[in-house]
């Protein structure tokens, strides 16, 4: 009996932990001006080894207030890849937008490991004022197809979207963006930095925040620790959407940038506690072993 318990101990511990999975809470957001934004779905490992990332296009506010898509004058999606890190420029391809019952999607597929930037642009006229919506996001896809990649589409020449108001980030790419790691948000108006400008930060689990860019036009955003995200495994992610708005050029421009965030991998590692537990356990085990060893001695009759 004794041994059976010892043998199954790891199994019992492991199984009992399954029960401890936490429920995720969700934060509330204040309804603001409607905007266009991109939502990451779970990336799919294809059987051939390539990676597909589905992105859903949303209109409304984030994340609850889903609005029916109005009749946009135009709605187009492009992706840039490979992107040169220094210039954030690259070959531009148009991406098909697939309507499904749940909404509009676009799928980015990568055979190799490549960085991508995706733009979705929509235009509409509201009360006679032209509105330009721009949703953007950047990511890296880790495809691992063994054969050589052949271009499947031909690139588009020139920049097809109106980038008058664009949110850029520094660094432009991070293969594993995580909470607790600062990122610079830099809104550009006609490629000029916007000083003291308001940026709205929508987060799946946090309350709506508004922040102002510095004199240099930079907002350094430190994604806060997120208990709900922490509870969900290290590949789980949430989305944070940065929104800026600007009136000018005879119209209104609303741009967003979606950032995918994982939980922080190392911030919660406590080496001191670990070594303490290790040392205490060592002492405990040594005590038990040395105590038990006396029994091996033969008694003198």
């Amino acid at each position: 009996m004794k041994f059976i318990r010892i043998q199954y101990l790891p199994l019992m511990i492991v199984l009992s932990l399954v029960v401890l999975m936490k429920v995720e809470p969700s934060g509330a957001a204040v309804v603001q001006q409607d905007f266009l934004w991109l939502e990451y779905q779970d990336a799919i490992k294809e059987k051939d080894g390539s990676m597909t990332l589905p992105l859903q296009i949303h209109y409304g506010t984030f994340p609850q207030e889903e609005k029916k898509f109005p009749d946009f004058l135009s709605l187009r999606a492009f992706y840039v890849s490979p992107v040169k890190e220094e210039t954030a420029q690259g070959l531009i391809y148009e991406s098909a937008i697939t309507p499904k019952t749940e909404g509009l999607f676009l799928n980015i597929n990568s055979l190799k490991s490549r960085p991508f930037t995706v733009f979705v642009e929509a235009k509409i006229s509201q009360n006679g004022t032209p509105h330009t919506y721009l949703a953007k996001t950047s990511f890296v896809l880790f495809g691992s197809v063994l054969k050589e990649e052949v271009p499947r589409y031909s690139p588009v020449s020139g920049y097809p979207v109106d980038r008058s108001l664009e949110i850029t980030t520094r660094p432009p790419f991070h293969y594993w963006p995580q909470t607790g790691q600062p990122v610079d948000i830099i809104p550009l108006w006609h490629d000029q930095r916007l000083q003291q400008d308001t940026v709205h930060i929508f987060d799946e689990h946090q309350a709506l925040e508004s922040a102002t860019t510095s004199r240099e036009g930079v907002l350094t955003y430190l994604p806060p620790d997120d208990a709900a995200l922490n509870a969900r495994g290290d590949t789980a992610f949430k989305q944070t959407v940065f929104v800026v708005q600007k009136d000018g050029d005879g119209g209104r421009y609303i741009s967003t940038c979606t950032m995918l965030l994982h939980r922080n991998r190392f911030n919660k590692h406590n080496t001191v506690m670990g070594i303490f537990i290790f040392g205490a356990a060592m002492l405990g085990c040594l005590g038990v072993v040395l105590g038990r060893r006396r029994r091996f001695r033969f008694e003198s009759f």
Partner: protein
Amino acid sequence: MSLFNLRSWIQGISFLILTYGGRFGLRLGHFLPCFACPYVGSCSGHCYLMALQGSIWGAQIPWAHLISVRGLRALGMFAGFSFLVIIFSKTWCGWICPFGTLQDWISWVRRKLAVREAEFSESFRNALKPVKYILLVLLIIIPMFIANAGLHPDFKLPFCQLCPAKPLMPVFEGNFQHFAIDTTNTITFVMSALSMLLTAGFLVGMMFKDRFFCIFCPLLALISLFDRFGLLQLKKNIRSCTGCAHCEQICPMDISDVHREEQKEPVISQDCTLCLKCAEHCPEDKTLSLEFMKKPLFSSSRKYVARHSIKTKR
């Protein structure tokens, strides 16, 4: 040179290569049948157990992907592992495994200090034998549950999370970060705390018992599935064994099968690490031999015992 010295040299060299070889650009693959711990930044190859549990080449794979390029890749990894095991058999454990070498070094210190080795009764030792198979099954099933049954992803690489090599081996490159307790959530906390407790327990065990960890090693269990197919075989001449039990007495894994065997020639058993101490200490000529594809590489002899058995311990 005695077999013992040869083995010590090979162990030392493979320890250096597997622990620091990565610094010199050496990449030996992700399917090594020994504890070349991937958590050592400068390691030159990876323990197959990580690949086996992982989501790229291993068990953390959705059912739908089993028959696909991904499934093939996992199979390829296993084929590479099998190939290495068939060629070198269990010398991976007794001659190459850096974690085994570490245990042998600790035992060497204990021997120098003349501290008595702990003894397990035969029944207790036999009761421990299935543990490694249970661990092997668990480390395959848990990732499958993660991929298919919604088990929490923080249980990924369950064995690596608890393996004492994970905190201990990186120490050799000055890295203590795997001693950390991960307070991210309850699961990571429990797993990392358990890891520390197990590491401490195993380390103390290793101080008092030869190859203490190997008793529980699921990789040994996996390798021993190939015992019959290995090109290297330990053979016993059952007609010349007089039952002196030197082999049993000297065995770091407390194997009595070699001593007991009276029916068949191959005597590699599930716990054997092919350290060949038994063949080295067998005083009967040509009674225990190591054969590579039926060609004897080493045979026991009275002369060898007389020449080496005492000297190697000084």
